[in-house]
């Protein structure tokens, strides 16, 4: 039996093309093209590497607007076998709780799985909640901050990159693993596989198919409330320059201004 892997991805606006509205101070993402969230690129590649070695079957799952189909086709162009898009107006404005719940619900109607991969966090919200949230709703183990994975029998050996070193975890499947951004080199899609992907198409699911009551999902099912948002005042730069030999004075000046402190670590 081939291993079954599911990769959770999100299409995000390309951060290089987002700018701050000079009047309203909001993010203007209207000109930004949709890209696969960078850490999810690494999740896809981690799954594809296991496919290269074991012949696993990979499904990529995303929730988003219909335009997110392009991200799924791109994944299939790299060697992913199947794409599923969860899209429905009632899912709009979901927070990380409602998103995790919705994604987890899709597993009720999908085949069994052995490994779920997800990017560690997204560039457009950066909470890192959704991967672990799905694992909790499904009631399975999770391993975060992965930089390398290897399947051995019924277990996965996961290398986690932590602040003080690499931790190696040996975990039985089924398991959810979140991958760190930059942890591998994502491959490119090929013309042959993209043609096949476009011919094959993707599967679309809405709230009825997922049997999710509208009040559990989208904005209604989202307990997160944004209390307030503060934009710190811009400090005027003093523009002072220090020569190399004046560095001790620079340190003194910074201490005096309270910018740095001397104390016990």
């Amino acid at each position: 039996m081939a291993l079954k892997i599911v990769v959770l991805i999100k299409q995000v606006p390309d951060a290089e093309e987002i700018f701050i509205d000079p009047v309203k101070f909001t993010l203007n993402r209207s000109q930004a093209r949709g890209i696969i969230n960078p850490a999810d690129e690494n999740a896809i590649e981690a799954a594809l590497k296991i496919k290269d070695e074991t012949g696993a079957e990979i499904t990529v799952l995303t929730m988003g607007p219909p335009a997110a189909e392009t991200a799924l086709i791109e994944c299939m162009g790299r060697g992913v076998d199947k794409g599923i898009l969860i899209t429905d107006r009632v899912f709009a404005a979901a927070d990380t709780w409602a998103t995790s719940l919705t994604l987890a619900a899709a597993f009720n109607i999908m085949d069994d799985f052995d490994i779920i991969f997800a990017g560690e966090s997204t560039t457009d919200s950066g909470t890192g909640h959704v991967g672990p949230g799905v694992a909790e709703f499904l009631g399975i183990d999770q391993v975060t901050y992965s930089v390398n994975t290897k399947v051995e029998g019924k277990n996965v050996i996961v290398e986690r990159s932590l602040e003080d070193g690499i931790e190696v975890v040996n975990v039985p499947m089924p398991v959810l693993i979140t991958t760190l951004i930059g942890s591998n080199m994502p491959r490119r899609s090929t013309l042959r596989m993209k043609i096949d992907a476009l011919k094959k198409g993707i599967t679309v699911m809405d709230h009825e198919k997922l049997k999710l009551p509208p009040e559990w999902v989208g904005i209604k099912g989202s307990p997160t409330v944004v209390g307030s948002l503060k934009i710190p005042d811009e400090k005027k730069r003093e523009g002072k320059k220090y020569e190399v030999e004046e560095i001790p004075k620079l340190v003194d000046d910074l201490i005096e201004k309270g910018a740095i402190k001397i104390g016990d670590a």
Partner: protein
Amino acid sequence: MSEFDVIVVGAGPAGSSAAIRLASKKMNVLLVEKSDPPGTKNVSGGVLWGHELDGVIPDWEKTAPVERYVKAKTVGFLTEESSINIDFRSRKFDENRSGYTVLRVKLDQWLAKKAVESGAMLVNGVTVDRLAMKDGKVVGVEQDGDTITADTVILSEGANPRVAIQSGIREPLKDHDVAIGVKEVIKLPEEKINERFNLRGKEGFAGEYVLGFLKGGVEAGGFLYTNKESLSLGAVISMKHLRANGNTRSFDIIEEFNSHPSIAPLIEGGKIDEYSAHMVQEGGYSSIPKLFGDGYMITGDAAGFSFSNGLVLQGMNYAIQSGITAADTFIDLKEKGNFSNSAMSLYQEKLQKTFVMQDMTNFKGIENVTWGNLTHQHLPGILENVMLEIFMENGMPKRHMYKILMDAMKKQNVSSSRMISESFKMIRRL
């Protein structure tokens, strides 16, 4: 049996037009584009001249993402201190809208979407490696070791015809054939643009300038176009001269252009939103490669179909028309199923009947005039001296125009016999 009727390489105006035409005639078309989404790797001034899109999208003037229509057209000569411009506005020109400023990121995406709506399969974000050949015939394309087959490949890959060169069906480009285009898109509020260029609503301005102030014999043209809420400003610099003047850099030339006393006030307060550079085809008739062969046709910039005679800079209209003509050629040949070199010559035959080949033939050699030191170095100086003497009052008795002109030419070291012969060439070619 081929997988596709036609594979079109490149989703610019040429490729998408071909794909729309083919798909709407129920042909099985694959359109492959390296950028994702289409348009993000393309650079063009750009003014879309002409109405060739009528042939594939009848209501394009209402629905296409165009910025403004060209109401005012300027041709100018800039010296270090002066600018001598011909400004053209006319009610007749206004009634027959023939130019639209466009931003290619929007236009190309829109065209590619139309191709998909017509039934073509679009794959973007993938670069074709080369043509797939069998017994000297093109049978499809190769990418990452796979071969995708088609009865015919239409190459619409733009000014840098990498696939054609890799596949050995055309010579690598020579310096003479190309220029470097550098461009900035400068954000400016709509009202400011209207005020500075004397425009209203959807009216637009398109200006092209001879940059006569460059040092070391460097030849370059500048352009300045108005979009809805931005300006497209750029320079096209001959590759030959850049190479000969190793220390001249294209980004310095665009700086010199946008800080020129007659240009700087127009862009003042604007914010650079995009900066891009691309190769531009400038070789004219002599750089046109063989346009067809067993199983392939070449369209648009890839075929050298761009035109500049010093007064206008055009390319997209040739691209669209050649794309449509290539599609029509395939549709004609499909009936008999013969895509051999001799059958494919129908493409050239059809093109000869369109303005594409007629312009290229009629203006054969024009690049030697538009790219020449008379136009780029001497003419701006001569004009400046003539104007200065005519308009500046200095208490001296007035002299005859002829005398003034002769003196101005002498200052620029241009003999009257050279002026006459070059002017004759220019008039003959315009």
